[in-house]
C-alpha cells in the first residue's frame, strides 16, 4: 500500500499509528473520560470533530501563517473550534456536556490535536490533513471505547449505562479509578504492540523533533528518566 495514499493516511490512525496506544498522546483525557462508554464516545467524537476542522484549516493557512507565530496561530484555531464544539454540545447535548465536564474544554490542549497540526497539517494538503484528522480522531475514539468498555463492563457492571445482569454483582470498582485506568491502559498498549509488532512506526519516524513541545520536553527529559506526555 502506498504510504501516502488517502486510504493509508486515514487507516494508519486507527491502529498502526493509533494516537493513544502507539503514539501515547492524550493520556490525560484518555484516563479521565474512559470510565463510561457514553463519555468515551462523546469525548472521542468531539475531539474528532475538532481534529478534522483544525487540521483542515491549519493546512489551508499553512502558507499564510508565518513560521514564527505558527504555534499561537494553531492554538487560537484549535481553541476556537473546541469552544464551538463545546457550545454546540452544551446547547444540544447538555447531559454529555455535564458528563465530560472540564475535559471538553481541555481538548484545546490535547496533544493529539496540536501534535497532528504540527506533524501533519502544517506540511500536507487540505484533503489529506482532514483525512489524517478523521483517522486520528477515530483512532482516539476507538482507543477510548476499548478502554471504556473494559473499565465500564468490569468496573461498573454495565455497558453504556445499561446494567449487565451477572457482572453487576461482581464489580471490580478499582478499574473505574485512576490506578485501574493506568493498568487497563498499559495492558491495551501491550496488546496493540503485539498486534502491530514490526509494523508500527519506529520511534524515530515520529521523533520528538516534530513535536511542538520538543524543546521543553527534551530539556525535561534530561532531568527525569521517564516523561509522560500530557
Amino acid at each position, binding site marked *: 500500500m502506498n504510504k501516502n495514499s488517502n486510504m493509508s493516511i486515514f487507516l494508519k490512525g486507527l491502529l498502526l499509528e493509533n494516537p493513544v496506544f502507539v503514539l501515547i498522546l492524550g493520556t490525560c483525557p484518555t484516563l479521565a473520560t474512559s470510565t463510561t462508554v457514553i463519555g468515551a464516545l462523546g469525548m472521542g467524537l468531539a475531539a474528532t470533530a475538532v481534529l478534522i476542522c483544525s487540521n483542515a484549516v491549519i493546512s489551508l*493557512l499553512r502558507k*499564510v*501563517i*508565518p513560521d*514564527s*507565530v505558527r504555534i*499561537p*496561530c494553531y492554538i*487560537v*484555531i484549535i*481553541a*476556537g473550534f473546541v*469552544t*464551538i464544539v463545546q*457550545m*454546540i454540545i*452544551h*446547547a*444540544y447535548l*447538555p447531559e454529555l456536556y455535564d458528563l465530560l465536564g472540564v475535559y471538553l474544554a481541555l481538548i484545546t490542549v490535547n496533544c493529539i490535536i496540536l501534535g497532528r497540526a504540527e506533524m501533519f497539517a502544517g506540511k500536507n494538503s487540505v484533503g489529506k490533513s482532514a483525512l489524517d484528522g478523521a483517522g486520528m480522531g477515530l483512532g482516539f475514539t476507538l482507543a477510548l471505547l476499548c478502554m471504556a468498555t473494559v473499565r465500564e463492563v468490569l468496573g461498573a457492571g454495565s455497558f453504556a449505562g445499561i446494567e449487565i445482569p451477572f457482572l453487576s454483582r461482581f464489580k471490580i470498582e478499582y478499574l473505574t479509578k485512576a490506578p485501574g485506568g493506568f493498568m487497563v491502559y498499559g495492558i491495551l498498549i501491550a496488546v496493540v504492540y503485539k498486534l502491530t509488532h514490526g509494523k508500527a512506526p519506529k520511534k524515530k519516524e515520529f521523533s520528538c523533533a516534530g513535536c511542538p513541545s520538543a524543546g521543553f520536553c527534551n530539556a525535561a527529559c534530561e532531568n527525569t528518566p521517564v516523561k509522560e506526555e500530557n
Partner: protein
Amino acid sequence: MNKHMKSVISLTAICAAVSLLLAVTNYVTAPIIEKQQSAAANEALYQVMPDGEDFQAVDLTKYELPDSITEAYSEKNGGYVFKITTTGYSSGFIIMCGVDASGTVTGATYIASSETLGEEATYGEKLKGATLDTVESVETVSGATKTTSAYRNAVKDSLGAAVILGGGSVDLRSDEEILNDNLSAALPSAEGKFTSVFITEELTDINSVYKAENGAGYVFVSGESFIATDNEGNVTSETKLKDTVETNAKKLIASTLTEIDISGYADMPSQVQKAYKTASGNYVFDLRAAGYGINGDKYTASGEYIYIKVSATADGKIIACETVSQKESDGIGSACADSSFYTQFNGKTADTYKDIDAISGATVTTNGYTTAISKVFEAINILKGGA
C-alpha cells in the same frame, strides 16, 4: 514587508476570524443554553407550567397580593407561577401553582409540608384546569378536608394574584368579610360589629338576622338583600321588601323567652338541657348532643358534647337550628359547626328531620346530632302534654 509586521497581522487576522466564528456560534447556541439552564434551575416551575418560557421573578413589593404568596414568576406568554406558603390550620404547606394567561390553573404541586400527606398529595391534579369561578367547586378530599381546603385556598389566591399582576382587580375577601361588608353597607352606624340573632319566630322570606353590637339596630337578610331596621323593627330605607321585613322584624323583636322548669318532667330526654317558651307559643331548646367518643345517648364514656340551640313551633316544626359549640375532630366531625350542615334542619318536622346530608366521614357525629334533634319533638310533646 517587515517580517514582524506580517506575523502580527496574520495572528491578528486569525484571532479576528476565530472570534467572528465564535460569535456566530454563540449567537445560535446561547438562547438554547440559557433555556436549558433556566429549565434546570426552575424545574418546579416547569412542573406546574410545562409550556412556560423564560420565567422571571416578579417583585412582589409592587403589588397588593394575598399574604400567602411568597414568590411569583412571570412567564413570556402572560402566565404566572406562584409559590404559596399556607397559614392557619395547615400552615407551612408550600405549594407551587401555575396560572396561564387565560386564568386557568396549569398545575399545582406541593413542595414541602410538615404533615404526612396521603391522598391529598395528588390533590393538585384535581385543581388543574380550574379557574377563579370554578375553583371553589373542586371537592376537597374527605378525611383531609382542612389540608385540601388550604390547598384549594392557596390555588384560589394564586388565581386572584394572577389577575392582580395582570393589572385587574379581584375580590379575594372571605365569606365572612363579604357578609360583614354587606351588613355594614346596610347599617353603617353599627361600625362593622354584628352578632347573629337566633330566630325564635316563624319568619317569611328572611334568611338570617343580625344585630348591631352597639345597639344601632338590626339587619335582615332576605335573599341577596340586606335591609336595616331600627330597634323597633322599622325599616329605615326605601325598599319594596319594607312591609315584609317590618312585619317579621316586629314579630322577632317582640319575641321574649320564658324558661320552663324541666326538672318536673321525669321523661324529659337527657339531651334537653334547658327549654324556653316564647310569648307566641314557640319552644326553644338548649340541646346537648353526643359527639364522637360518647356512646349513643348514654353519657357514660368520656367524650365531648355538641351544644345545639333549636327553636320550634308548638306543632313540632323546627324554625332554626344552630350549633353553639363543639369539640369534634378537626376537619371531620367539626363540620357540624358549619351552617351548611345545621341549617338543613330548618323547617324539618318529626317525619322529615332524618332527610339531611350526613357529614362525610363523621357518621358518629351526625348520628349524635340527629338523635338530639329527634328529642326536640319528644320534648315538645312532653311539655304540651304536661302543660
